[in-house]
């Protein structure tokens, strides 16, 4: 009875102009969106920019959300398009800044050692993803990090499932040959 309101309810309230509903919606998804953006851009500053762009786009399109699909799916469809748009505007930063992974940025770190390990793993993941072409990186992100099916990704991106499979298989073969991944696992 007193559980947190559903996404649909928050969307309806936000459309009526209730700022706190929109705030709750942002706080509910900002973590996922921010980490998505981190993996897709490879650095914190661009991730912040991308996240803000995504939420602005979500807000602008909020009235068109009919509730026919999960809000999170709809949100990540927008995030995917915003990411593609982001790539068009800015070259991907290949060189990751050593100091970017600020210590307070990591979650779930109980010890300094675990903190360092997590930091290093995230960095390796971003380095590995950075070596993939943008289209393949997006498919890997949606398939493995967002746990979407080919059909869902196809619906979101407007690309056929066969094309997505082709992109994914190409990405998997490249990842297999990456030495950074061995550090992660």
């Amino acid at each position, binding site marked *: 009875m007193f559980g947190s309101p559903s996404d649909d309810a928050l969307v309806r309230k*936000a*459309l009526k*102009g209730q*700022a706190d509903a*929109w*705030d709750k919606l*942002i*706080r509910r998804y*900002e*973590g996922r969106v*921010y*980490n998505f953006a*981190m*993996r897709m851009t490879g650095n*914190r500053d661009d991730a*912040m920019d991308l*996240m*803000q762009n995504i*939420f*602005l786009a*979500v*807000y602008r399109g909020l009235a068109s959300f009919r509730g026919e699909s999960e809000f999170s799916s709809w949100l990540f469809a927008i995030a995917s398009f915003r990411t593609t748009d982001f790539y068009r505007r800015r070259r991907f930063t290949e060189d990751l800044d050593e100091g970017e*992974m*600020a210590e*307070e*940025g*990591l*979650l*779930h*770190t109980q010890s300094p050692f675990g903190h360092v390990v*997590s930091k290093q*793993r*995230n960095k*390796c*993941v971003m380095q*590995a993803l950075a070596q993939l072409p943008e289209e393949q990186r997006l498919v*890997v992100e949606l398939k*493995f*990090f967002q*746990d979407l*099916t*080919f059909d869902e990704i196809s619906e979101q991106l407007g690309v056929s499932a066969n094309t997505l*499979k082709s992109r994914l*298989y190409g*990405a*998997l*073969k*490249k*990842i*297999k040959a990456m030495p950074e*991944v061995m550090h*992660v*696992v």
Partner: protein
Amino acid sequence: MLCEEARACMSARRKSSFDPEGSPQFETHLEHCQDCRELYQGHVLTEQMAMAWTDEAVPQWDRLAAHMPARQSTPWFTTLLPLAACLIMGFLVVSRVELVSDGTGWSMSFGKEPMGEAQVQAAITQALEAAALQNNQDMKLLLADYQLHTQQNMENMVAAASHQMRGERKDDLTGMVAAWSETREGDMLWVQERMQNIVLRQDRTHKNLSKIAKYVQQ
């Protein structure tokens, strides 16, 4: 098992409890298909990579930047009040602008006070009085001219008759002159009375005109 089936198994691996490595058919396929074997290895590595990711906390950011930037509903009066003000101003401009054109040229005025009823009445009365005065003067001049002309005629006639007649006839003529003078005075009174009637009738006409003018003004 076909390659397509093997790859479907790989995809199903994450979302279900299905473990392809426990499937003899899948393992047999991988032993014979290098392509699928490489894909499977990449698949497992990517899964592990995804699991190795530790979510970062979102830094402090300005949520207001993405926070209801323009969807605030505007109150009705912010649009209707200016519209109503414009309509009222337009009506005033159209109804209160007076364009006057006379012999000296033309002029345009806004917001001039109209003449009051008392002012209109005073102007009409003044005009009527001026007309009545003029009429009276004209009548008096006409009457005086008529009197003078008649008197001269009578005197001329008496002088001519006195010159031709003698004795009793002269006395008779004198009596006739006296009678004519009396008649003339009676005639003059009659004429004056008629003239007075005409003046009164004109005065009534002016009053009627005044009433009509007042009605038109209203």
